[in-house]
């Protein structure tokens, strides 16, 4: 509610909708009224690419794509937009045989889950790690993978998404979220278990269902916690 008042306040100053603009308190905020985090670097370029259809992944200010994917820890599917009005959402895309980037991404979500539990916002956030390797990643493997990095996959805010088939994984993960993955031929694998090449992506969407940021490079767990904290403060 504060946020709406705050936005009304900035509108009267004539600054609303300007990327990176300052409000009366000197605090910068999102590029549109749907988002509260600061726009990413080179936002104008990214926005132009996205709007022209050249950028396959959602960015700051986009609506979170709507997909419905089975949740391995519950009966029935999860819709990425079912949390609108209730929870901020974090999404990422992994395969469990990965022992480098994927556990790092998932462990940063475990840190957010831990922080949320400690600081009373467990019900304000949903963490949605998603596999793009459903043929290998059984529900059991996905649960173990989450537990290994210290997450509690039995909690209501941890939902593991597993597309029904490899084709569906491609449609969801590449098609909707622009996270390109490709199978590495056996002879080219640096390590036996590194079956897939893939882009790294963590998407933070707000309670209104808009993408605040899509982190596609290194951001450590502390950095991710800071981003979530800023979103919660400004919301």
């Amino acid at each position, binding site marked *: 509610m504060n946020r709406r008042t705050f936005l009304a306040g900035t509108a009267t100053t004539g600054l609303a909708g300007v990327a990176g603009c300052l409000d009366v308190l000197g605090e910068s905020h999102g590029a549109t009224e749907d988002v509260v985090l600061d726009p990413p670097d080179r936002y104008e370029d990214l926005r132009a690419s996205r709007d022209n259809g050249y950028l396959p992944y959602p960015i700051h200010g986009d609506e979170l794509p709507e997909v419905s994917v089975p949740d391995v820890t519950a009966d029935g599917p999860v819709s990425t937009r079912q949390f609108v009005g209730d929870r901020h959402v974090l999404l990422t895309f992994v395969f469990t045989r990965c*022992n*480098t*980037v994927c*556990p*790092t991404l998932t*462990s940063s979500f*475990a*840190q957010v*889950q*831990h922080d949320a539990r400690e600081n009373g916002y467990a019900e304000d956030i949903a963490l949605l790690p998603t596999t793009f390797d459903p043929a290998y990643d059984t529900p059991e493997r996905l649960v173990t993978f*989450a*537990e*290994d*990095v*210290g*997450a*509690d*996959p039995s909690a209501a805010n941890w939902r593991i998404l597993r597309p029904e088939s490899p084709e569906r994984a491609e449609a969801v993960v590449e098609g909707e979220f622009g996270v390109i993955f490709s199978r590495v031929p056996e002879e080219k694998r640096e390590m036996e278990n590194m079956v897939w090449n893939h882009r790294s992506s963590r998407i933070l969407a707000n309670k209104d269902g808009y993408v605040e940021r899509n982190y596609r*490079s*290194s951001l*450590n*767990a*502390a950095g991710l*916690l800071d981003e979530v904290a800023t979103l919660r403060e400004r919301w």
Partner: protein
Amino acid sequence: MRRRELLAGLGALGVVGTGAAYQFGGLDDRLRGGGSQVESRELERIDAPGSSPGTEVVPESGRVTYVDFFATWCSICESKMEPMGEAATAVDSEVQFLSVTNEPLGVTTTRTDVVEWWEEHDGNWPVAHDDSLELSRAVNASGVPYAAVIDADNRLVWSDAGYKTASEILDPIREARDVSPE
């Protein structure tokens, strides 16, 4: 002045030293924060071989600190334990040498898991838990494994991600001792 030389050398190291495997992070993480002040804080020390239960003040002013961040799920951290063991044996009591996990503990991964991991990989030096990520944040730990050297005046003088040999661990410790006031 010698400190400045060290930091200049550090910059070059950061540029060259990109070959090592690491779980996450990049050049920016390693170049950031050179020489910045790291506030001392108390971490819970885990009851494990070489590590008595209690609290550990990190960094400890007056001694050079070498801190190595790891996680029990991290396979590169496993392979780093052997050179860590060699380095731990080589340093004397003038160096605060420790490993730190910043995993959330107590729900699915527990202190017992950390102790078992520690025993399995022959850890035999102090190991502590950075529960709130405060220390990880203070040294810009970009992932695991990640190492930092903090001089006797609490200045972050070196940090790097990834696997290291024993001499790659010991060299920045020696440099930090050379420039620290006695």
